């Protein structure tokens, strides 16, 4: 469960800072633009990468999203977070990119096998179970459809509420909740099946269970 009060204060602070930077960028301050990019680039890239599963495509989309966001600052509504607007643009670019006919798929599939780099945010040595659980969860996330995947990432990774996700994805709130419900059900089912599979393996191979 989330801590509403602390997050609200943090969000308010982030929003004020964003609005200040956006105003400066509107006045042509390139240093403020650089700061905005630095604040959002990795999170945006991570989100896009999870959808596209391709490094080059993800960077191209991120670049295009920033350029579009900066070029249309006049129409940016300060009621919303800049990141909300940025993710909205990026999500639509991802969908457009996925709808385009693709040529050679081999490289794309190869990149799919690359789970990421070795640098992890955790300093604690990871147990085998924890690692396996993460692997299972991400494999399950990869098997979600685009809408369910986007809702899951925006909700958990970016900490957006259902209302904001609905604006980003241009969906009704009820549809967003439905996607989230189904995504959770699928993730849970995969973990449960993996747990059952483990029991079956231990039953057939007591040596593995003992080891």
């Amino acid at each position, binding site marked *: *469960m989330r801590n509403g009060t602390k997050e609200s204060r943090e969000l308010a602070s982030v929003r004020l800072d964003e609005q200040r930077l956006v105003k400066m960028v509107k006045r*042509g301050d390139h240093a403020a*633009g650089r700061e905005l990019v630095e604040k959002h680039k990795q999170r945006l890239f991570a989100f896009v990468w*999870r959808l596209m599963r391709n490094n080059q495509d993800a960077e191209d989309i991120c670049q295009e999203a920033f350029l579009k966001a900066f070029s249309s600052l006049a129409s940016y509504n300060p009621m919303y977070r800049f990141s909300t607007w940025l993710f909205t643009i990026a999500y639509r670019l991802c969908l457009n990119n996925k709808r385009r006919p693709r040529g050679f798929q081999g490289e794309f599939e190869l990149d799919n096998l690359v789970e990421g780099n070795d640098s992890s*945010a955790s300093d604690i040595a990871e147990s085998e179970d924890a690692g396996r659980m993460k692997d299972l969860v991400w494999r399950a*996330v990869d098997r979600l459809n685009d809408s369910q995947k986007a809702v899951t990432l925006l909700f958990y990774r970016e900490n957006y509420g259902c209302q904001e996700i609905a604006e980003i994805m241009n969906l009704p709130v009820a549809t967003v909740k439905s996607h989230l419900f189904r995504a*959770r059900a699928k993730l*849970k089912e995969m*973990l449960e099946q993996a747990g059952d599979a483990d029991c079956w393996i231990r039953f057939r191979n007591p040596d593995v269970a003992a080891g």
Partner: protein
Amino acid sequence: MITCEHTKNLLDAYLNDELAGSMAAEVDAHLLDCPHCRHQLSLLEACGNVVRLDINEPKISEDFTDRLVAILEENASPTNAWPQLRRGIAVATGLLGIAAAVALVVGFYPRRPTQPAIEIMPSKYTPAQPTSLVETVTEDFLGWPIGDVLDAGERISSVIELGRLGLIQTSDPIDLYPAEFNSSRPPDTVPAQTKPELDVLETLPDLEEDSEVL
């Protein structure tokens, strides 16, 4: 006390922080007593925690920001203002061209003249009433000198015609300004400078007998 079925249906809202305080407390109370529902909640929370906390994506390129800012600066540079200026010039040129084309069409359009474009000046010369050559000759024969009736050019033409018609002898000298004719006109009214050339009369052929008489 809510049941497992109730709790199962409420878990999503519970995870979304959407339950009212009293309902959230009911779910908490049930979870304390129900291992099955606790297990279900743990699975969901584990999935959410992995997605939230496991930052496992590749890093974006280190020069991403530099490249992006370079593009932004290039787009904002004065040289890139040229496309807008060119666009403005193109639009203005197009409008001028349209205006010129319209002016050209209007200028060359043959309008129906409501009045003559060039004012026709009333002639200072009142053409003489057309008279037949016979009448002219008759008058002259009656005594009116030819030179008093016609101007120099017409006199010559008339004399030539008269010779052709055989009405006068071309070999005879013709004094176009005979003073002894009985004319009401004073002889000195004929200006001397209008005296015609007479040489041409000597070149006329004689009329043949079957020539037509006008």
